[in-house]
């Protein structure tokens, strides 16, 4: 019997599926043999007959191999390469890289590095996130602290290095932690909440409040999804209310109280920024000028070609030159210099990647694959949406980096990890079997009406 099963599984190229198929077939042969034995056959005879019933092992194995083949998402691979190169072109066009050739070379190295990271993650089995999430979380923390902490220590001027975008790596890691806690009760939900808060505190400590809040929000969505999907042995309503109550209502209440108390004091820069966002006209001379500036620029933009304001901008004679050159406004810069069409193309590229990521999410039957793909999808969606809103003046200005059109090493690597994970999930869609179903009711009630 074992020889027969080995012959079948040898046909299956994906090693991971083999054991899983072997177990099912072994169970079947045992059942079938037991049935023959009951009918009076000897044990050996029964097993032999049961094996014979299976048919040709090579044929069966090839058929199973066809079903459980790893697959490549060529569309996503194509988009990643095309848009990364296109992104380099945009960086070049907007002038950030053209002045110093060393900078251009450096950015090329960052891009190559990001391709390496993407390929590495793609070929690595993503389920390792579900198996060793705590070890990976700890490693990520060390990596994050070094990547962000080292420049902070060196600069000593309160600036936050661009590498802080690496904080988003915690979102898929959190999906793995949730997966690991699956099947347990309220203790697990509490533990997940504690991990989420700890992550946010770490990120807040080293990076910006905004990044911490974004990661925190995404992790909360994942937690609520896990509860809804029945990952925990809890009452869904109670657990969701607990999570939202402790993680959202409580801190929001505290923040609202703090804001109320400090609204009229000028010393909090966050309050000042918020007030400027809400009433830009009132603060046109101060912190609100940025929103005025964005509106002015967009208003003057042409469909194709440079706007009238562009020339004076380039000469640096107008206020707001600093913004023009700052990273989050790369899209605005592109629109002013080359027209609305160029900006729209970039936005379309983002939309295509996000829509494709969403399709990958929708396809996932595997629980871990689903959760990790949701995590990656959210990181892409939130950053792109935020960036576009910032560039159009609809969102409080904050530091952010777009996929594909960012300087430095942090953003390319972070987004490469997300896209690499999505590719890996797609690749293994048909090769990873869920070994144990999560929390499934053990009985089923059915009522049948029959006509007499």
């Amino acid at each position, binding site marked *: 019997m074992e020889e027969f099963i080995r012959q079948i599984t040898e046909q299956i190229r994906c090693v991971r599926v083999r054991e899983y198929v072997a177990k*099912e077939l072994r*169970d079947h042969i045992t059942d079938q043999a037991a049935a023959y034995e009951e009918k009076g056959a000897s044990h050996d005879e029964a097993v032999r007959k049961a094996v014979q*019933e299976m*048919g040709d092992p090579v044929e069966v194995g090839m*058929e199973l191999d066809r079903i459980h083949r790893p697959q490549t998402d060529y569309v996503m691979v194509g988009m990643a390469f095309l848009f990364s190169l296109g992104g380099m072109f945009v960086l070049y066009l907007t002038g950030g890289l053209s002045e110093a050739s060393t900078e251009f070379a450096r950015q090329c190295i960052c891009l190559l590095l990001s391709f390496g990271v993407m390929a590495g993650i793609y070929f690595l089995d993503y389920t390792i996130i579900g198996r060793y999430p705590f070890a990976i979380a700890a490693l990520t923390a060390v990596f994050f602290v070094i990547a962000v902490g080292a420049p902070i220590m060196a600069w000593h001027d309160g600036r936050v290095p661009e590498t802080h975008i690496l904080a988003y790596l915690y979102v898929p890691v959190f999906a793995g932690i949730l997966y690991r806690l699956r099947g347990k009760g309220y203790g697990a939900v509490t533990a997940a909440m504690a991990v989420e808060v700890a992550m946010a505190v770490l990120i807040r400590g080293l990076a910006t409040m905004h990044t911490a809040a974004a990661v925190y929000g995404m992790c909360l969505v994942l937690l609520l999804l896990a509860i809804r999907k029945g990952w925990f042995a809890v009452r869904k309503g109670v657990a969701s209310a607990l999570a939202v109550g402790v993680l959202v209502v409580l801190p929001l209440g505290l923040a609202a109280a703090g804001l109320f108390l400090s609204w009229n004091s000028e010393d909090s820069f966050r309050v000042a920024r918020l007030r400027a966002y809400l009433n830009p006209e009132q603060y046109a001379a101060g912190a609100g000028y940025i929103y005025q500036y964005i509106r002015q620029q967009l208003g003057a933009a042409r469909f194709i070609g440079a706007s009238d304001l562009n020339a004076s901008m380039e000469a640096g004679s107008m206020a707001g030159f600093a913004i023009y050159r700052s990273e989050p406004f790369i899209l605005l810069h592109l629109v002013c210099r080359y027209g609305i069409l160029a900006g729209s193309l970039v936005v379309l590229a983002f939309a295509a990647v996000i829509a494709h990521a969403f399709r990958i999410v929708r396809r996932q039957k595997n629980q871990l694959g689903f959760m990790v793909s949701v995590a990656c999808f959210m990181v892409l969606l939130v950053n792109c949406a935020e960036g576009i809103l910032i560039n159009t003046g609809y969102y409080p200005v904050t530091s952010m980096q777009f996929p594909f059109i960012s300087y430095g090493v942090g953003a390319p690597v972070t987004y490469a990890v997300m896209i690499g994970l999505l590719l890996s999930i797609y690749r293994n869609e048909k090769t990873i079997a*869920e*070994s144990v179903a999560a929390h499934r009711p053990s009985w*089923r009630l059915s009522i049948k009406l029959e006509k007499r």
Partner: protein
Amino acid sequence: MSIDKSLISGSTSMLLLRLLEEKDMYGYEMIDTLEKKSNNVFTLKAGTLYPLLHSLEDRNYLTSYESEAGGKMRKYYSITKEGRKYLQSRKEEWQEYQAAVLSVLWVGA
């Protein structure tokens, strides 16, 4: 009684889905039940069954989970909403086909 194979293979997935419509089953159980219900006409080989089940699962018509039965962990299959829809359309197709065959075979008889 032996029946032309191509007639059976095309409709096997329909029969399996029909079985699973009533309750979740594991592989051997399906073969056994099918044999009994069809008075031994349909003796499905395991070598045909499992690739078929896996491809139905791949197409989202079935889901599987492990559960204990008779002291053994077994892989159970369960029909999905999409699977039910697919079964319904296959049934209608089959009915049409069968009616057409009958009317041709016994025309005027």
